[in-house]
């Protein structure tokens, strides 16, 4: 059989195979639970696996490899798994076929670790499907391509570029000389953390099912819960404490965690980004406490302020109360947290603290240059000097990111959504946070947006998870690839 030499097809096939695995595990969970949906999940797994096999074994990697191809491969594979992830929602009948776009919304929100939902009645959703919903966030958190590079030697395409296209942050940190080892180590740490959080949640009083599903979505900073009222359902301080620690840990860089685990805690001290990250969340917490003083009793104030500062500062999106009832300044602070997000190299979304740092330094350098026009001032962060090229890339990213927030907000407002909901929805979707402000608060769902508006939000979620550039270049590279194929045939 003649194989098609198109890398994006092969990578998409590998990603689909991984998702088929997730569906299979979920069908086993559904069968054990006996709440239904086991067969539908199995059918979904078979369909996805068949398509995945066809794509994977029917194609090979392109003879020429460049960054555009890596971008396109990652972006197209994310589109493929998002479509496949919608299948179980439709086959189980939780979302009817006529609302295919809503199933896609739930799937994209899951894979991108956004956590926004269109489901309102969680009691009628089978446990197996809720497990699958949490599991897709877990897969999306560390990245499917990272997983594929780690476990599939036959993928035939390696390289840091592919991982860098998927990993959050301006650069991908190598943990080993071999890219495959880097991917394996990342997934090992990720798996260990999931296990640890599951056990901690179990001890905090959750059932095994809840502990595992919430551990999946905590470590991925996704925010899907198995209950409509999210973490408020448990009414447990201990559960909240475990989740706060889990979210805070997973909102920080995984490569720094690896270095700390192998070379000692001094690794944290060497990274200036972690100081900024912790300071930002702490400042937000203090601000929220100050603003809510007099509005909430002091125990609730401390508890909710800390939970939301961490939950939105890491773009997880778990909820314990309705912050829409809080003072406007508290809501503005939460919006800023959603915009910035967690650390680079973590599973968190948002613009990333590292980029904020670079932008700060860049702006202050220009201020110094305005005073001393001939001075040569490098951009330093801690002991590291940031190269001009990296700084330019970061600045370009931030500008594009803010531009997308504005475009998304305008489009949603143009569809009749009030400006606060529209712009906060745009920030939340692009930052993969989950809840927004206005009508789309933590106790509401995203059905408040019109149908086309939800399509806009889906695109923003994908743009946000893929860190904008790969998603933008996906189309460019694809068109270029198509024209190359046409030229070859001609």
């Amino acid at each position, binding site marked *: 059989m003649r194989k098609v030499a198109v890398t994006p097809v092969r990578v998409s096939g590998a990603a689909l195979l991984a998702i088929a695995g997730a569906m299979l595990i979920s069908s086993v969970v559904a069968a054990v639970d006996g709440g239904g949906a086991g067969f539908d999940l199995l059918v979904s797994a078979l369909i996805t696996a068949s398509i995945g096999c066809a794509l994977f074994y029917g194609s090979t990697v392109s003879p020429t490899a460049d960054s*555009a191809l890596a971008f396109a491969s990652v972006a197209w594979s994310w589109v493929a798994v998002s479509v496949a992830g919608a299948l179980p929602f439709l086959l189980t009948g939780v979302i009817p076929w006529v609302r295919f776009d809503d199933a896609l919304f739930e799937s994209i929100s899951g894979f991108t670790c956004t956590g926004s939902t269109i489901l309102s009645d969680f009691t009628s959703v089978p446990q197996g499907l809720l497990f699958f919903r949490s599991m897709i966030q877990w897969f999306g958190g560390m990245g499917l391509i990272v997983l594929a590079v780690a476990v599939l030697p036959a993928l035939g395409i390696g390289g840091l570029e592919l991982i860098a296209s998927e990993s959050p942050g301006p650069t991908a940190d190598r943990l080993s000389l071999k890219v495959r080892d880097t991917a394996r180590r990342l997934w090992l740490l990720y798996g260990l953390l999931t296990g640890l959080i599951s056990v901690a949640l179990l001890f905090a009083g959750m059932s095994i099912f809840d502990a595992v599903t919430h551990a999946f979505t905590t470590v991925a900073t996704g925010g899907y819960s198995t209950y409509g009222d999210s973490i408020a359902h448990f009414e447990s301080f201990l559960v909240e404490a475990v989740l706060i620690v889990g979210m805070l840990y997973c909102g920080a860089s995984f490569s720094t965690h690896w270095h700390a685990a192998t070379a000692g805690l001094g690794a944290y001290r060497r990274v200036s980004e972690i100081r900024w990250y912790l300071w930002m969340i702490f400042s937000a917490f203090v601000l929220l406490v100050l603003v809510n003083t007099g509005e909430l009793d002091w125990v609730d104030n401390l508890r909710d302020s800390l939970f939301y500062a961490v939950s939105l500062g890491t773009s997880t999106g778990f909820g314990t109360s309705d912050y829409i009832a809080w003072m*406007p300044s508290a809501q503005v602070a939460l919006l800023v947290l959603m915009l910035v997000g967690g650390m680079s190299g973590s599973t968190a979304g948002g613009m990333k603290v590292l980029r904020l740092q670079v932008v700060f330094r860049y702006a202050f350098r220009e201020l110094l240059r305005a*005073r001393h026009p001939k001075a040569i001032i490098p951009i330093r962060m801690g002991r590291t000097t940031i190269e001009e090229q990296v700084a330019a890339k970061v600045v370009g990213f931030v*500008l594009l990111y803010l531009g997308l927030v504005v475009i998304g907000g305008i489009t949603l407002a143009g569809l009749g959504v009030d400006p606060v909901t529209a712009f906060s929805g745009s920030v939340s979707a692009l930052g993969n946070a989950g809840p927004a402000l206005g009508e789309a608060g933590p106790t509401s769902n995203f059905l408040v947006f019109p149908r086309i508006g939800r399509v806009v939000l889906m695109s923003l979620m994908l743009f946000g998870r893929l860190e904008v550039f790969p998603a933008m270049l996906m189309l*460019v590279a694809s068109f270029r690839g198509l024209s190359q194929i046409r030229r070859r045939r001609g």
Partner: protein
Amino acid sequence: MTPRPPVRASAPALLHRLTAKVLAGSGSFIQRLCKGKLESASGVTVGAVWVLTAPVFFLCAAVDFLDGGPDYFPLLVSGVIVEIAGLVVVRFGRFPSELPISRLFVAVVSGALAALSAVTFAHLATGTSIAVDVALVEAAATITGTNATTVDAESLSLGMISFRALGQWLSAAAMIVVLVRVLPHLGVGGLDADGGVSTRSARRLAPRSGSTMARLMSVYVGLTGLFAMAYLLAGMPWMDSVIHALTTLSSGGFSTRSGSIGSFQSGAIEWVAILGMLVAGTSLPLMFRAMRRADLHRFIRSIEFRVYIGMVLVVVVAILAWSGEWPTLASTRHAIFATTSAISTTGYLSSGLGTVPFGGEALLLVLMVVGGMSASVAGGFKVMRFMVLGQYIRRELTKSIHRSAVGKIHLGRSSIGETALARIIGELFLATMILVPVVLLFAADGLGVEGAFTFAVSSLSNVGFAFGDAWPLGHLNSLGALGHLSATFLMLVGRISITPVLVAMGGIGEPTQRTIRRWRLTKRDEIVR
């Protein structure tokens, strides 16, 4: 030898000569005065601002006296005090022979603060505002050309209305000086100079900055006169015409009526205002060149002008499309009015601004941020800077694919240097950093999320109206003292640009910084030992 035929001077040429003489006269008057021993650019600027502002007090006192208003005496007395204070400061000061950029920025900020204090004094003396914070924010709105106010325009005396309108007009005239002398040091936004960039719409008009300034000023004065006539012909009473011409061409926005232009309930007046606002947001050098040669093609050839008009058209079409009704002449006029009011940062309100759909609100907010063309008197970040940022993003996207690509950014036939590019980006980020804490403060001081954000953007862009619960002009009334002070700061930052303000603040705090640096170095030495 045959005698040269007598040259018939045209009205624009006469206006230019007159403006040049007034400018040169004021300059030499100040130079003659400052013969003191204290070498200080800031001192001289403060004194000069006070000395040259005082005649405005006298003029408005005379207007109020003739109208039989109550404010002529307080205006006269405060004018005398400001004049004397100015003369004293100028007399003891001397302009330094060398002026580094940081000192220049400090002088500009000092000048703005001097104008702010004089106008605050007038507001307190006449009883227009009783509280200092309210007087400060009213003064800031006056000198920055922002249509944000806590007072009902119809309750003000004619003297005070004229004073506020003249204040807006003169501050925009002072902006022309800043455009020629200061902004070039910051890259685009002003006229071209070393390190700066410009498209054809923002080139110098003459080798000497004084001549350029005189030419631009004559365009500004001439257009103000023309629009006063146009308002009069459209059916506005003559005093209202003059005041509205002053606040239209300066993109200020103050009106004689509490309902702004909409109070006149006249389509013709609104069309004149629309044209005036468009002109206020257009580059002055571009208009000078086009008018001198009667060559309207210059506008079409300017890429920045095309984008400026294109944005207006796109937003008008979007507002009409999103309104959910079939467009009529009146709704089209209201949409164009709101769009031009936002992009030119004038802040006028028409009778139909209450019907803007949500999407339209969002677009108007974006236009406020964008602002007018570079080298215009409008506020905002300026069209050209956003065009440059767009090109920058495109270049970075290209570089993601082609790592070693060297991309030069071009706007039309002009190329943008890396230094200017970095300055534009730095300016945008610094403005955002200032904006976020102020939004938090506004939200804590009495505004809702939407009101806080839109009013902060509106203040920074010197527009005035904003959205949310207190819309269109109730935001200042909803804020407390801290909110008023923050709004004052934002308006000033928006007018002067963030970099000069921060550099000036850094200049003031330089001795402290030096001490801290020395202390840190000593500490490090001790640790090393």
